């Protein structure tokens, strides 16, 4: 059984069909890319997958369970986490606390033990700190644990978003243009990190990206969107060799 199965997903905004008859199957452990020109509907697909938008039509199955129309919170608990194209950090919180918010549903104690500082508070907080530091270490950001997240350089903000999403222990991680605004060196680091996450955390990845070096370097399969519709999908090499894809991209540029 595939981890993610989307069939005939559509959403209409007024007269615009931003996503139209979208189908996608992602197998467990895959590193899957979603590409296409600006305004093609890629982010909208993520918003549909995470319950931010409710689809006009279609069905989304995660691990065989129907999650269509569920709330963002239910969907996160079902196992989908994401990052955002325009970074959305908890800006006034420290780097460590951003990750710890992601751990919220994994490590629990009651408000009662928090207020009275019962032993369960201290022991759980300790575990949370350790887990959060472990996630930060994936991105070599342990040293910035106490930094207020708004003060991080741009590239690290993107990485922190990934660490925070991973903290929710997802089966499927959606990355929306993770390399946007990064320099080539940072992008290279990010590619290694993404590969590392796929291999070591048992997380399946679906990512939107414009950087073709990153896409061809790490994605095993691709789906190309254009004007809300699937242009083509399949193995990365085949897709990138497809003349229609080249045309869609050149047309956009």
């Amino acid at each position, binding site marked *: 059984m595939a981890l993610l199965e989307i069939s005939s997903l559509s959403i209409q905004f007024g007269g615009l069909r931003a996503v139209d008859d979208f189908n996608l199957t992602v197998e467990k452990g895959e590193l899957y890319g979603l590409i296409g020109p600006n305004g093609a509907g890629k982010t909208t697909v993520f918003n549909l997958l995470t319950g931010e938008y409710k689809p006009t039509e279609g069905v989304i199955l995660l691990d065989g369970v129907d999650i269509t129309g569920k709330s963002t*919170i239910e969907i996160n608990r079902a196992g989908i986490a994401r990052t955002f194209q325009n970074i*959305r950090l908890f800006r006034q919180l420290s780097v460590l606390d951003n990750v710890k918010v992601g751990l919220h*549903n994994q490590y629990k104690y009651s408000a009662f033990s928090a207020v009275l500082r019962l032993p369960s508070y201290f022991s759980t907080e300790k575990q949370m700190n350790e887990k959060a530091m472990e996630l930060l270490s994936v991105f070599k950001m342990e040293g910035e644990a106490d930094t207020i997240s708004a003060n991080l350089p741009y590239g690290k903000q993107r990485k922190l978003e990934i660490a925070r999403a991973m903290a929710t222990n997802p089966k499927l991680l959606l990355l929306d243009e993770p390399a946007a605004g990064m320099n080539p060196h940072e992008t290279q680091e990010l590619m290694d990190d993404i590969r590392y996450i796929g291999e070591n955390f048992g997380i399946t990845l679906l990512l939107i990206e414009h950087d073709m070096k990153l896409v061809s370097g790490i994605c095993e399969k691709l789906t190309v969107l254009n004007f809300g519709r699937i242009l083509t999908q399949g193995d990365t090499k085949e897709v990138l060799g497809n003349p229609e894809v080249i045309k869609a991209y050149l047309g956009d540029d």
Partner: protein
Amino acid sequence: MKNMTKTSKDNLTTILMIVAVYVIVMILRSAGLINSQMDGLLVPLCVYATMAVSLNLVVGILGELSLGHAGFMCIGAFASAFFSKVFEQSMGVFPRFLFAILIGGLVAGIFGFLIGIPVLRLKGDYLAIVTLAFGEIIKNLMNVLYVGRDANGLHFSLKDAASLGMAEDGELIINGPLGITGTPFDSNFTIGFVILLLSTVFVLNLINSRHGRAIMAIRDNRIAAGSVGIPITRFKMFAFTVSAVIAGCAGALYSHNLSSLIATPARFGYNMSILFLVFVVLGGIGSTRGAIIASIALTLIPEVLRFMADYRMLIYAIVLIVMMIVNWNPRSRAWIQAHSLTKLFRRKEGS
């Protein structure tokens, strides 16, 4: 994770500050160095500081602008005074006041919860307007509420005392625009100090927990908080209700310090709500300690500068506007960050 120890040190400083003020006041008092005017301010100081802690939870931590917090204080004041009047003869002073405070908090908390259901679905300005209206409604309602008691039990009316239909021996407890008179004087500075201290410890411990982080995450980015599975409505309700409970307890402290409790605009109107907001804003939105300090400073300064009383609200308004601009303008914030003392010191260490 120096962070952890830094915040707990910070919290300890706040708590020690409150204790220190209490100890100093007690020493000055026993040395006879506090005049009666100052002495009369001690309980209100505790009330206002507690209100500042309460409102900071909603405005600074949850990030919602509530302009009706005097309403929750009003509910706590009346509910607790009512309780104390009913049980004036049948209970000892200490348990009665303890229950009165708990009831003030509980009733205000119930109202906070019920009002939170519709209000917290609104955003920004709308929420501010609706909470403002709520505060005014509560205050006005208290001015037309009559409650009496006779052998048959309690009687309620929103018209006048006559329509309560009480027996001859009936006793009027809440008398419309005349409010409640003769509430026992159970409040004192020590109890006020304990309420302030407990509220502060409660809120600080809450902020530094998974619950507090969830609330601040919602404040900083609602969509991102939802994406990591934070139940947004539940935590908004939680913060709002806890804040109302604390305001209710402050109200109980307040009402047991007054010979007659009347819901006047000066005590429970929107000017009061705005004053609480000034405490929070002046204290540096989100800082519990700052809010407490601001509440004390702004309560004492007008007493010292009585001749300026006429301009008080004007000065508050100016302070509010200036602080809002400074706090919410990204450029001024960047400037403050770049020029903060800690940053200066750190730079020196580095070089």
